[in-house]
Structure formats: structure tokens, C-alpha cells
């Protein structure tokens, strides 16, 4: 586990805070004085997982860096809904350049800050780059891999909602198998996205042997905050991949965003772990094991698997992928400690 679980206080580790906890043991998000790095009035859809994930992550980074933070943003939902010129929701220094170059822009800022600091003009200013899965795993992948191999002092955060959502839900290389998108329609013999394609970027990041790689979801706030904090303890290239459900693209009710992230983790569909220098250091174990069906059924993008004659074989293939994650990352449920 990435963090010390809170001793039993009614809700223990799972809630955002709790009146019974001393303030220092509550999450950053529980504080009445949290940064709200991304402010109200943004144009994200109702129940947007990415807006939530971005606030969770950047608020934690602000806390960890004593507010000495600059963010570079790739094109994507996060950029579009937060910053329609000339208005912005960001309450931190923030820059958007192109779809594919957020990692490179961040590298440049980090280099500039290093020089300015050496000249005594600024303090220890840290740099974050962020983008969606399209800007990260597809379009920005070259720049990102370069940032990794040069070990530039940047934390890259990818908010993975499994597709190009703001342009109308097209497939990305992070779209899960069998999911219906605008470019992988639910027609033909094997409807939806093709099995055996796409990539799991956290594993590729680990292959660069960079200091820190982690995955997280918006359903596990304590874990997410602990990982951002940990990432900020390292110098060099770091990568955090956060699963952020998208009510629009996934076809789920807006109030189920956190539930969907929780189901992704509990079914083993999305492994939550952290790795240092290419080695897995800890995983967030499954708490209440569930079959993948529980995760798939509520989503309209998988509706074609559950018609009059359910696609049993396809569901079994997805279950096999989840089982592989559980084996590979050792996610089996274990006894909860109080």
C-alpha cells in the first residue's frame, strides 16, 4: 500500500476526511483551505472524472511543493473545458501549447527554472505536465518517451478516460477491448474495440526505469494523494496514470463516476500500484472481489455484450484480462487491518 492506512475511525481510510480525525491525518481535499487549483465554473460535463482527478492531483502537488508549481497542459477535454480564451479555471501558473508537446514544453520549463534558480531568481519551482490519454498515449507519446529517457525533472500526469471524449468519443490506444466508440462501432462479428490492440502506458513508463511510476483512480483519494506526494520526493521523470471515468463516453449516469472507478479497481480491470526505478513497490489490493460483469454492465459502451443473448465469450476474454492483472500485480484481496 502506498500509504499508512488510517486506524479505524468509523470510516477509516476510505472517506475524504472525518470529524474524528486530527487535521493532519485528513486528506488534502478535506481541508477547508485546499487550493482548488481548478476553480468552479469550468465547463466539464456533469460528474466529470477528469475535472475531479485533476483537482485531486494538482491540489496534492501544490501542497507537496508549497505552491511552487507550474503546469503544462496537452490539448484535450481538460484544456478545453478549463480554459476557453480568455477565461480560465486554473488558479496556478498554467500553459497550453499543442496536443502532442506537453512533455516537451514541461521539459523546457524545468530547464528554464533550473537556470533561473541557479541565478538566484526563483526558488525551487517544480513542473507538472498533464493530459488525457489521447494526448499522452497517442499523440504526445514521442515527447513523453523522450522526457522519460532523458530523465527530465517533470511529473507527467495522464488522466485516462479511455478515448477522445471532447471530440465525440473516438478510440485511443487506451480504449479498452470491446468498448464501443465513434470509431469502433458495435457492429459486425466482433463489435467494439479490437482485442489485442492498444497499450498500457504505465508498463511502458516502467520500462524506461524512471524513478517513479504509479497508477491511481478517483475512487481512492488517499492513495492518489500519497502517490503525488511521493512523486514529488523524487527528482527526474515521474509518471502517474489516473483512471478518470467519463459519463459521456462510457455511457454511465453522472453520479456513478466514482463508483465506476471503484469497480474498475475491484474487478481487477485497472491495477492500482506504484513502481520505483522499474520495480513494483506496492499495490492497492482488491477489497471486495467482483466479476468484471459488474463493471461492464452499467456502461452503455459495453451494452452490446448484454443484449438478449449475452456475449459470454467476450465477457470471459475481458475476465481473463482482469485475472491476468490480478496475477501479475498480486491484487488478491487480503485481510483489512484496522
Amino acid at each position, binding site marked *: 500500500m502506498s500509504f499508512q492506512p488510517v486506524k479505524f475511525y*468509523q470510516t477509516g481510510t476510505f472517506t475524504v*476526511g472525518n470529524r474524528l480525525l486530527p487535521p493532519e491525518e485528513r486528506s488534502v*481535499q*478535506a481541508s477547508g483551505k485546499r487550493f482548488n487549483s481548478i476553480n468552479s465554473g469550468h465547463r466539464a460535463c456533469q460528474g466529470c472524472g477528469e475535472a475531479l482527478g485533476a483537482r485531486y492531483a494538482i491540489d496534492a502537488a501544490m501542497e507537496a511543493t508549497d505552491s511552487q508549481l507550474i503546469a503544462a497542459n496537452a490539448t484535450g477535454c481538460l484544456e478545453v473545458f478549463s480554459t476557453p480564451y480568455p477565461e480560465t479555471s486554473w488558479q496556478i501558473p498554467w500553459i497550453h501549447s499543442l496536443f502532442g508537446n506537453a512533455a516537451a514544453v514541461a521539459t523546457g520549463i524545468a530547464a528554464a527554472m533550473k537556470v533561473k534558480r541557479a541565478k538566484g531568481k526563483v526558488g525551487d519551482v517544480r513542473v507538472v505536465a498533464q493530459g488525457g490519454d489521447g494526448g499522452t498515449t497517442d499523440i504526445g507519446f514521442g515527447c513523453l518517451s523522450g522526457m522519460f529517457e532523458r530523465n527530465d525533472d517533470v511529473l507527467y500526469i495522464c488522466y485516462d478516460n479511455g478515448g477522445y471524449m471532447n471530440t465525440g468519443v473516438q478510440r485511443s490506444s487506451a480504449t479498452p477491448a470491446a468498448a464501443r466508440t465513434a470509431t469502433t462501432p458495435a457492429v459486425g462479428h466482433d463489435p467494439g474495440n479490437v482485442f489485442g490492440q492498444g497499450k498500457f502506458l504505465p508498463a511502458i513508463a516502467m520500462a524506461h526505469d524512471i524513478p517513479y511510476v504509479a497508477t491511481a483512480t478517483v475512487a481512492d483519494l488517499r492513495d492518489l494523494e500519497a502517490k503525488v506526494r511521493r512523486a514529488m520526493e523524487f527528482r527526474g521523470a515521474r509518471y502517474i496514470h489516473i483512471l478518470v471515468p467519463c*459519463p459521456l463516453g462510457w455511457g454511465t449516469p453522472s*453520479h456513478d*463516476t466514482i463508483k465506476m472507478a471503484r469497480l474498475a479497481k475491484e474487478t481487477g480491470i485497472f491495477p492500482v500500484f506504484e513502481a520505483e526505478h522499474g520495480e513494483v513497490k506496492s499495490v492497492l489490493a482488491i477489497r471486495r472481489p467482483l466479476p468484471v460483469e459488474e463493471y461492464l454492465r452499467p456502461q452503455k459502451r459495453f451494452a452490446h455484450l448484454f443484449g438478449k443473448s449475452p456475449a459470454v465469450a467476450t465477457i470471459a476474454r475481458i475476465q481473463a484480462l482482469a485475472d491476468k492483472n490480478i496475477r501479475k500485480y498480486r491484487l488478491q484481496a487480503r485481510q483489512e487491518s484496522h
Partner: protein
Amino acid sequence: MEKPFAITLNPGSSLANHTGSWRTVRPEYVSRLPPCNAACPAGENIQGWLFHAESGDYEQAWRALTENNPLPAIMGRVCYHPCENGCNRQYVDASVGINSVERFLGDEAIKRGWKFATQAPISGKRVLVVGSGPAGLSAAYHLTRLGHQAVIYEAAELAGGMMRFGIPKYRLPREVLDAEIQRLVDFGVELHLQTKVTNILDTLKKGFDAVFLGVGAHIAKRAYIPAGDANKVLDAVSVLHNMEDASAPMLGRKVVVYGGGNTAIDVARTAKRLGAEEAIIVYRRTRDKMPAHDFEVEEALQEGISIKWLSTIKEAGESDIMIEKMALDENGFPQPTGEFERIEADSVVLALGQDTDLSLLDNVPGLIVDKGLIQVDKGMMTGHPGVFAGGDMANNERTVTVAVGHGKKAARAIDAWLRGETYAPPPKHEIATFERMNPWYYSDAPKTMRPVLDIIRRQSTFDEVLGGLDESNAQFEARRCMSCGNCFECDNCYGVCPDNAVIKLGPGKGFKFNYDYCKGCGMCVAECPCGAIRTVPEEN
């Protein structure tokens, strides 16, 4: 303002964009009625007092508890805790041990000497309370809280009613009973012992404005059993009553108890402690039909008491009795089979239920008595104006907790009646059902079991069987409460809102919504652990 190259507009904040206009449903904070509170016959606000115990403020917890029930140390021992049967935590692991926390608070209050504080201005009204059992004590307490002078007339030489003369010591130590009664006397309740009321209308004329009757049900029901001279046939009420006198009843080596209620169990366990080698309960139906509570039956069986199911006593001989085997018919009623069996018995104790002595109510016009029970309206008033009644004499569910609830209800109705009004209870909130909660957020936490006295000591002594929790256990148990339907400030709504549209008001003050930016996604509702937020449609 001088702008850089290609910049034509000043930067602005998204706060100008009131996304609240997107909303079709709005979230609202609500308080729902926790199932424990809904199930409590004494009307305790259980979730409310556990809330204070959770933070370790036991005095505040005790004060919140005693707003409804003045006898927590007693209740924490003898209540059959229907609250725990209602508790939503049973669907997660096991119900919260509400009863054991209540007992902890009650014992803590006795240890620390906490006293009740008066609230209402003195009304100058005097209300007579007949009987010092749980109904009478509760009525007197609540009348005092409302500013009236409560005067209890008790026929016996000691106060407590059936709590003293019906419940054995091993379930309710008398020091606890005495302490909680003394606290009521200190609070201003006038208590007159050995003062039997023989004619209620005459007594009322001695300067009382109203009366609450809580005389209980002390007359044992009998069954005709042909008996030889030498065999002793006793009744449970007098056996248990005599336990409080100097002379413990002589029951002999082999004791047969006839009946299937809690009283039958109490007598059998008492007989065992008095030295009986064998205590046998004879009951005409089966265990699932037995009115006695399961855990009491279990404890009795542990102590070596045997139970003859489906049996009736035909006759009692000199040193044995004849029992007839029964069989259940298709309607579940026992029917005789004609099969007989003799078992050895030195004495037979009948525990077949109790009736009320209603002689003090002779000549009171307007009273209605049905099947031995005095009939009362919703405010516990009998057919005679100004005469209220509660407890065992007014209902068949004869528990201390029900009686305490009656006393409270009656006190409120008397208070209203004295002012020429009718008491109207505030409308109840909807129940906080488990489906409305999000149990994911509660840590796994198994129930804390209370220590149980060794079997060997339960066979010869009247030491209390069930122990209490210590402070850390009690606090742990309190924290197992899921606070169903009532905000406990876990910060979830504040944290999970993607639009920062929840405003945190600070400790004890909860939260409010910022409807300028709330888009109505409903995430706060779905992720509220305790179901204290609901969505309602927007009007336009």
C-alpha cells in the same frame, strides 16, 4: 492595459460562468430517521448519543441519551435492544452493540456522579404517579423536566417495581437500580414508599392536577393442576419477589418451571443458583414459538437448565409430576397426544403470565378495561380525563423499555393536557434504509463482545452474568455506528464534487451547497456514506 503581442482580451476567471444553470436536479442535505431510533420503544435518539460517544465526549452522550430515557445503566442491562435488530450495520457485518455502549454510559454516569439538570420553569402543577416501576419513574422524570412536581406513591417498601421484584440480580444488580432511582430523587421527584393507593379518585383530591398510573402487573396467572398435598406449587411472581426478602424461597433439589416466557427462564436460572440440582422448564410448544428471548434461552441452556418442549403438566404428585406430550396441529397449536411421562419434582413454579390489580380504579367513570388491560389513547390517557396509564397495565409487550417509552409519552401528553392542549408529536423523518447508504466507506470492524461470567460462577452466585465494556471498547463500538441518515462530517460531499460546489462550514456546522456552480451531477448523493443527501427536481 498594455497587452502583449496578439493578446486582445484581459484574462478572466471561470467563476463568471455560473454552471448551476445546467442543473435539472438539485442536491439537498436531509436528516433521515435511523432504523435504531425508529425501533426503540423508549424513543431514544440512539444515533444522536452515539455521535458524542464516538468522539469520547461521554458526558454529552449520556446527556443526549437521558433526554429520552433516565435509566441508561438499567437499560444497558435489561433491554432486549430492538434497536440492534433494526441496525443497518447487520448488513455489513454485525449490528452495533448499542446496548453495551448504553450500559457503559450508564455506568460511567454512576461512577462520575453525573446529575440531571432542570430546564423548564416551574409550573406549580403537581402530578401523582402511582407505582415506581420503569413507567412511573420515566413519567416522573419527564414531568420534572417539563417543570411539574412529580409525586410517586409506591406500595412496596422499596422502589423499582418489577425491575426489583421481577428481574433477578444476575441481570440487574441492585446497586445500579438504586443509583438510578436516587438520581431521580435528587432531581426533584418526590418518592413515597409503602404508600398504597386504594382509591385513585380520593387520592387525586389531595392536591393533584393529574395522575399517571404505572402499577404494573403483579398478580400471577394460575392454571388448574390437580396436586397432592405434599407437592409445592408456587408462582413465579412470588418466587422472584421473595428473592428480595430475607427469606429465599425453598424450592428443593428438583424444580419444574411451567411456562415459556422470560419469567420462566428467570425462575429456572434463579432456582439453579439457589442450589437446585435440576431445573426443568416445561413448555407446551416448540422453541421457535417460545416468547422468551433467544439469548436468554441460550444462557439458560449453558447453565444446565433443561427444557421439555411440547409438554403440559397434567398433575402434580408428592415428589413427581405427570406431563403429557403434545403435538402441533396444522395451525401450529399444541394438541394432546395421550402420551404421558412422570418426572421427579420437589416443586412446581408456574410462570404463565401476570395480571394487573385494578382495584384502585373501582368506581372511576369512563375507564375501559379489555382482557385485563386498561385502554388508553395515543397520549396514554384513559377514558377518564386527567387519568393516564402506561407500562404493563396498558399493554401486552411487557418490557422495561416499552414502559419507559409509555412514561415519556404520557408525561408529554399530561404536560399538554395541563395547559388545556393536546400533545402533537413532531412529524417523523423518513427511515434511513440501507439502500440509501453507501457502505463502501465503512471500515471492516467486527462487533465487540461483552465478557460473560464463567459458567461455574453462574451456577451458584447471583453475580452479574454479562460484563460491561471498558472505555476503549465502548468507543470502538460506538464508532461502528454508521450514522444512518445523519451527516457525520466525513467530508465526502466536499471532496467528491468536481465543481467545488460544496461549502464546508466548519466543525459541527456541516456543509452547504453553492447552487451557482452545482451542476446537479449527484455524485455527492451517491458517495455520501450515510445517505444524508437527496436529490430533488428543479422546478423550472
